[in-house]
């Protein structure tokens, strides 16, 4: 029986293979997109699942209330807390800590070549007891015994040492030598700990000053995991931890400690920042919906094309019923047909997925592979296949198997009107989705180019920046440091292709928004008004480079006349409610009493996601470590080469690492650019699928109405008239979709735009453009079919009756 179903199904597919291929193409594109999304989603939901005893491993979370309505939440805790917990809490089986090296890049020197390592971490000796790790070679014992040890991930060992055995090799970091003791397997895609290089915490604490810092109860640096005995009362354990830390803290400080389970870590959203891999649950759910939608609109094609053909198959169905086929038989047969198509589509899906996987990996920053070993991956494929078969078969199978056997012979309408309008509804649904995505793409694109083209109020062209790491000045006295810094500045300034150098405290003209509050005073300030201020600690040369626009006043004079004076931005002047004229007003900043010498036009010093807030410029060099260098146009390479050689003479243990402000600026919007790429990808997939469906339907309509077209032609209809007769129906559907999609897109895209403090407004032309694109695509798809039908020789279609 089963064999018979599939035999018939295969024949039916072969007979209508052009429709079949449209179905397969559409389905496989949709399935591939869905499979990729589901792979990612599955991965997000199974983070750290493969860790044994995950349910007993908890991470200490620290909550510090800094004001009534603001609490900072950290994933880290004092080093000593873990130490004490192990000593005094019997329910604790093991304690382990990690300090991800994520504040600044780590530079490895291997055979005098520098490598930048982004995923390094310090771990303590219990790490591998708590977290399952597969060693490729070497072991943890030697690593734990010798502080200056390194463990590498397999991929990095390969990168650094090619095919040689990495164990035993020496790597130099900041003028100390470390020995590779082991190589471990790369962390799986669903691991929170994406580390490629481990160093014992002991190496860090070999430095007495470092150790003293670490041992302070006020230093919340270490991500600390506690492994409990099974069945431990976590509430009680939390209380125990609190009572350990209490005696070491101020009486009235607002510190709270909680425990978070390892498996609950991935979707945390309250942390200030993190060195581990996190994701937003909301985003994952949005992707589940998108994946499902893509699959559904792909299935709509099959449903539409199959039910459209139903009337042609009515005779076959009726005869089968008359000779004894039950509804069940016919139902099964149609399910078998959908299964044949879906399985063929799956084959294509596997090909598409494996071709797309490398770019998908770099896009998602995970490493998925399509090996036979990854059982879950095949499960996702099979699951998607089953879902597809179900979505595809239910409606057509019910519809087709429910024909009254007689009506088919009457030649009358087997299809109720209801069915055609359902089909139209489904096409509208597809195009609503496509148009929504097109509107989304246009909006994101417009917003990003708005951001990029906005006059920033300063000049960032030709400016590069580099950082003088605090490590390089370690152990020097303050005046020594100042001397080193200014010598470097002078040396660079001497270079021929350098037009200006400035030493500043913030990263550049962009600032990641470190605020301070309560550090400023001026005339008329209410006692309880302590606005947060971003200080730009600059030198006198700063404005030669960036040329900020002033609304009144001037830049700092050379020398130290303006040592205690400030320049503020417009927002600061307004928010502080400074007396007018602003210039000349007394202003106390960080203890220095001076006057406002200038007011600059507001400029976006953070990304445009954030509102412009008060800025105060001060002449202050003490904490400055960032150099901004303006280089001559077209001479960048030469300038960089010269600077690099100066750097090498002074700091041979660190590579010269720099960036251009323009690139830095683009980096701020990397996530937004990613969203834009993603949206475009989805839009293209949705449009391809929808158009395939439309193409199939148009072909079918043209075929079905062949006789009508023939008669009309004989009676004198023009080709243009016939084309519009056949196309108008579809174009109307697309227009209806536009009407539905527009308000939906308006609402959702406005939600997205809310993320930007400075944003475009959704203009009417965006909707018109999206509609125009959709109609054009639809017309191109349908037009080809209808023109073919309209041009056909009428005699042919009439005779075949």
């Amino acid at each position: 029986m089963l064999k018979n179903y599939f035999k018939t199904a295969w024949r039916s597919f072969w007979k209508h293979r052009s429709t079949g291929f449209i179905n397969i193409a559409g389905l496989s594109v949709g399935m591939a997109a869905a499979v990729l999304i589901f792979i990612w989603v599955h991965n997000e939901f199974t983070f750290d699942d493969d860790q044994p005893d995950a349910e007993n491993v908890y991470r200490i979370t620290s909550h510090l209330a800094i004001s009534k309505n603001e609490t900072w939440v950290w994933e880290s805790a004092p080093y000593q807390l873990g130490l004490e917990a192990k000593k005094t809490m019997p329910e604790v089986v093991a304690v382990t800590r990690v300090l991800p090296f994520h504040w600044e890049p780590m530079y490895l020197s291997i055979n005098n070549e520098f490598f930048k390592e982004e995923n390094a971490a310090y771990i303590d000796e219990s790490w591998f007891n708590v977290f399952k790790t597969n060693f490729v070679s070497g072991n943890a014992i030697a690593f734990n015994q010798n502080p200056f040890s390194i463990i590498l991930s397999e991929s990095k060992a390969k990168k650094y040492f090619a095919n040689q055995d990495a164990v035993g090799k020496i790597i130099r970091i900041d003028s100390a030598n470390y020995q590779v003791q082991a190589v471990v397997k790369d962390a799986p895609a669903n691991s929170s700990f994406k580390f490629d290089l481990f160093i014992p915490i002991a190496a860090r604490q070999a430095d007495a000053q470092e150790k003293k810092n670490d041992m302070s109860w006020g230093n919340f640096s270490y991500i600390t995991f506690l492994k409990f005995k099974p069945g431990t009362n976590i509430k009680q354990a939390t209380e125990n931890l609190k009572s350990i830390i209490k005696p070491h803290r101020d009486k009235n400080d607002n510190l709270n400690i909680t425990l978070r389970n390892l498996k609950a870590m991935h979707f945390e959203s309250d942390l200030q920042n993190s060195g581990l891999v996190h994701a937003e649950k909301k985003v994952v759910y949005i992707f589940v919906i998108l994946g499902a939608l893509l699959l559904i609109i792909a299935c709509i094609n099959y449903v539409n094309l199959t039910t459209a053909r139903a009337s042609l198959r009515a005779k076959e169905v009726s005869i089968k019923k008359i000779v004894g086929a039950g509804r069940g038989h016919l139902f099964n047969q149609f399910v078998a047909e959908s299964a044949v198509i879906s399985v063929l589509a799956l084959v294509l899906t596997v090909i598409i997925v494996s071709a797309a996987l490398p770019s998908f990996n770099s896009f998602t920053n995970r490493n998925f592979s399509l090996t036979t070993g990854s059982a879950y991956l095949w499960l996702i494929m099979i699951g998607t296949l089953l879902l597809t078969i179900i979505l595809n078969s239910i409606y057509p199978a019910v519809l087709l198997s429910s024909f009254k056997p007689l009506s088919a012979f009457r030649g009358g309408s087997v299809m109720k009107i209801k069915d055609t309008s359902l089909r139209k509804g489904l096409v509208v649904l597809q195009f609503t989705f496509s148009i929504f995505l097109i509107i989304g793409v246009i909006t994101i694109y417009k917003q990003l180019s708005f951001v990029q083209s906005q006059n920033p109020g300063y000049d960032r062209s030709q400016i590069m920046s580099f950082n003088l790491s605090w490590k390089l000045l370690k152990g020097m006295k303050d005046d020594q440091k100042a001397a080193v810094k200014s010598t470097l500045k002078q040396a660079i300034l001497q270079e021929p292709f350098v037009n200006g150098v400035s030493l500043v405290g913030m990263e550049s003209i962009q600032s990641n928004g470190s605020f301070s509050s309560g550090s400023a005073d001026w005339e008329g300030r209410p006692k309880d008004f302590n606005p947060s201020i971003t200080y730009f600690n600059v030198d006198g040369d700063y404005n030669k480079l960036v040329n900020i626009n002033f609304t009144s006043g001037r830049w700092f004079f050379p020398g130290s006349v303006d040592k205690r004076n400030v320049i503020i931005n417009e927002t600061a002047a307004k928010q502080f409610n400074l007396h007018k004229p602003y210039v000349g007003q007394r202003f106390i900043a960080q203890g220095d009493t001076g006057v406002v010498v200038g007011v600059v036009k507001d400029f976006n010093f953070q990304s445009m996601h954030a509102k412009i807030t008060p800025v105060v410029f001060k002449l202050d060099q003490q904490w400055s470590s960032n150099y901004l260098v303006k280089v001559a146009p077209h001479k960048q390479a030469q300038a960089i080469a010269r600077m690099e050689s100066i750097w090498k003479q002074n700091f041979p243990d660190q590579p010269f690492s720099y960036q251009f402000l323009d690139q830095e600026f683009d980096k701020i919007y990397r996530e937004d650019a990613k969203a834009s790429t993603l949206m475009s990808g989805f839009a293209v997939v949705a449009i391809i699928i929808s158009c395939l469906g439309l193409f199939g339907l148009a072909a079918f309509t043209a075929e079905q109405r062949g006789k009508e077209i023939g008669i009309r032609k004989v009676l004198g209809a023009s080709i243009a008239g016939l084309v519009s007769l056949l196309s108008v129906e579809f174009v109307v559907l697309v227009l209806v979709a536009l009407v539905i999609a527009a308000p939906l897109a308006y609402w959702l895209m406005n939600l997205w735009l809310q993320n930007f403090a400075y944003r475009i407004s959704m203009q009417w032309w965006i909707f018109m453009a999206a509609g125009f694109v959709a109609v054009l695509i639809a017309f191109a798809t349908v037009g080809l079919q209808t023109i073919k039908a309209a041009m056909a020789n009428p005699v042919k279609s009439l005779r075949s009756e």
Partner: protein
Amino acid sequence: MIKITNLEKFYRTEEVETIALNKLSMHVDTGEFVAIMGPSGCGKSTLLNILGMLDDPDEGSYVFNDIEVAHFNERKRADLRKHNIGFVFQSFNLIDELTVFENVELPLIYTGVSAAERVKRVEEVLDKMQIMHRRNHYPQQLSGGQQQRVAIARAVVNKPKLILADEPTGNLDSSNGNDVMELLTDLNEQGTTIIMVTHSEHDARYSHRIIRLLDGQTVMENIMV
């Protein structure tokens, strides 16, 4: 075998209501060969469809083999039908995508006959219909007469007790038509009950009894000798 009493069937379109069968009563005994005749539109096909349980009556009773089936649901009717009734149509109604063999095999598949048994029975009946040499052809490759022989083969392959034929010779020339009538007569002689709708007095003469309909009612019955 068949007893219908006061059978009524209406067709309602937007405005008109057509009475296709009007309080029709009749009976057919096992082993009979009955012809139904009447002008176009008098309700012959409607009657045949109801007898074949493809359609249900609006009023009245229909007893088939001592079972009242007038208000059976579709599944029960389909079940009764596939084991007891074979159909032959004027327009053959073969499935174009299937070969001769597969067309004839179809009813056996749906009644769950094993594959080996199916081959045996299909070959047997194709042999009887003298169409064996065409077993792998598709319907379009056959003449009308051959197609109708395939259709009859399909109708009898399940060894039904009753064969319903709606103008089985309507699309055939007289020679092919006579062949078909001979086949039906043979089947009847082997014990199959046959009810046939026809416009041809010549064909009607093969039957035992002619029932004449007019406007959905029996007007006359002729017993043939």
